[in-house]
């Protein structure tokens, strides 16, 4: 199963303060450990929300708001995507990570990624319908 490990933002990451050399080294080592254990699928650090935007959906309306966004603790500063056998294993890996914002309180949230089998048998009629629709669309294209 796959888990996304979400690093929550703090005021420094939102201010665009780059990690110092020590943290970069520690993170490098940690990433290396994840790679060597064969569990890391992907991982990135994110720029502050001031460089991002949001698209708000309201019925059929779309409204674009530029960053920055104020609710710092709810924002995300980076992520890893890992493949492991259990939530406990994901937790074990996260416990080994360096504190993303040394000297402060920070948080990494662990979220499981949906897999096809999570949808269960009750999902199959729609799935089948979707498949058939796509196939029909492809057949038309030919």
């Amino acid at each position, binding site marked *: 199963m796959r888990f996304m490990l979400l690093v929550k933002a703090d005021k420094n990451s939102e201010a665009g303060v780059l990690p110092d050399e020590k943290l970069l080294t520690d993170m490098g080592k940690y990433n290396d450990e994840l*790679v*060597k*254990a*064969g*569990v890391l*699928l*992907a991982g990135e650090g994110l720029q502050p929300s001031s460089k991002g935007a949001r698209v708000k959906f309201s019925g059929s309306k779309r409204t674009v708001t530029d960053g920055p966004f104020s609710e710092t603790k709810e924002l995300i500063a980076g992520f890893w*995507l890992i*493949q*492991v*056998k*259990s939530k*406990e*294993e994901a*937790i*074990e*890996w996260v416990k080994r990570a360096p504190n993303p914002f040394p000297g402060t309180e920070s948080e990494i949230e662990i979220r499981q990624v949906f897999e*096809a089998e999570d949808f269960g048998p009750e999902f*199959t009629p729609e*799935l*089948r319908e979707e*498949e058939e629709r*796509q*196939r029909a669309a*492809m057949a038309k294209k*030919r």
Partner: protein
Amino acid sequence: MTAPDTHRAIEAVWRIESARLIAGLTRIVGDVGAAEDLAQDALVAALERWPESGVPDSPGAWLMATAKHRAIDLLRRRALLERKHEQLGYELEAVQEMAVPDLDAAIDDHVGDDLLRLMFTACHPVLSTEARVALTLRLVGGLTTEEIARAFLVPASTVAQRIVRAKRTLAEARVRFEVPRGAELAGRLSSVLEVLYLVFNEGYSATAGDDWMRPALCEDALRLGRILAGLAPEEPEVHGLVALMEIQASRSRARVGPSGEPVLLLDQNRARWDHLLIGRGLEALRRAEELGGAEGPYALQARIAACHARAHTPEETDWKRIAALYDVLAEVAPSPVVALNRAVAIGMAFGPAVGLERVDALTSEPLLRSYHLLPAVRGDLLDKLGRFEEARAEFERAASLTRNARERDLLLQRAAACAGRPVVTGPSRERKAPMSS
């Protein structure tokens, strides 16, 4: 934390730490059997202590320290018993090494080497293929005997026996705990790669049983492949194999239909392919090529898989290129199965009549006599040529040869679809998928 929570946490720690633990201990005590026993003892100690004391901050270090104490006891006992034993010097050296103040640092420095040695030992040619598979999954993959048994649909006692016998064989053959060098390396490495790909394939297209795929096995093989790529980054074929597995695994979701039936490559919904894995696969392939390994057997198969991965629709598939890659593969790693796949590619590139000619040349091949994909491919080509009655007979023959229930259903369906169709002259325009997926 409740006791069951702690147990699950300990299982997770074991999965992360066991290979390094066993590898490090093997270097100290000299054989994997004793090392695994020591590691298991440490695990039992953790299961006794941690539910009360809580999981320590560095659980891996705790397990290692506990196991090392026992290893020292073991070595002392051995030294007393076998004073004149030739291994004494070697063992004393190990004991002295453990007297280094910064023990963990000393162990850490060796971790990569030890893990690699462990892989080579578990896949040693003195062992049968089945034993190599079981030992690799158990020692390097951290799987329990029960998990291995479930994966290969055999009783747990069979797997347990295989592992015990394998450990004894290694000890009796006095297999050294080392990474082979020079001329020996290539052969030994290919044994490791073969074991990993065998595990992957058993998960990817289960040879027996009711499920078409057992994804957990694919994941284990991929994890071991990625670990190996980190341990032996200069070996192009390691990256070639990882590339092949990543790209094949990218299709997992798409190759099983809603009720568990197989969906063949050209019928798959490509939007359901895992593009993250495809990207990882292409990246691993690039590394294999950079290291000069473009024509290694695994890299060639990965390049063929990459041709499919790069095609956004089945029609975009570059079959001529695939056929050309099979030409090279048939020279580098000739086998009847490669020849059959090559015939399929040629059929797709140059028409079913040419493909059938190639397949017919293989029907006398003894190794393919009971291989279900031979009649399946023949059936497919005959179907495309409008020779439905012959096609039906071939699909039925294929169905009678496969041991996988899902695959049998699919083949019988295709046989039924051929039955009663009028014979047409000239090839049918329909492009049905070949049996690969």
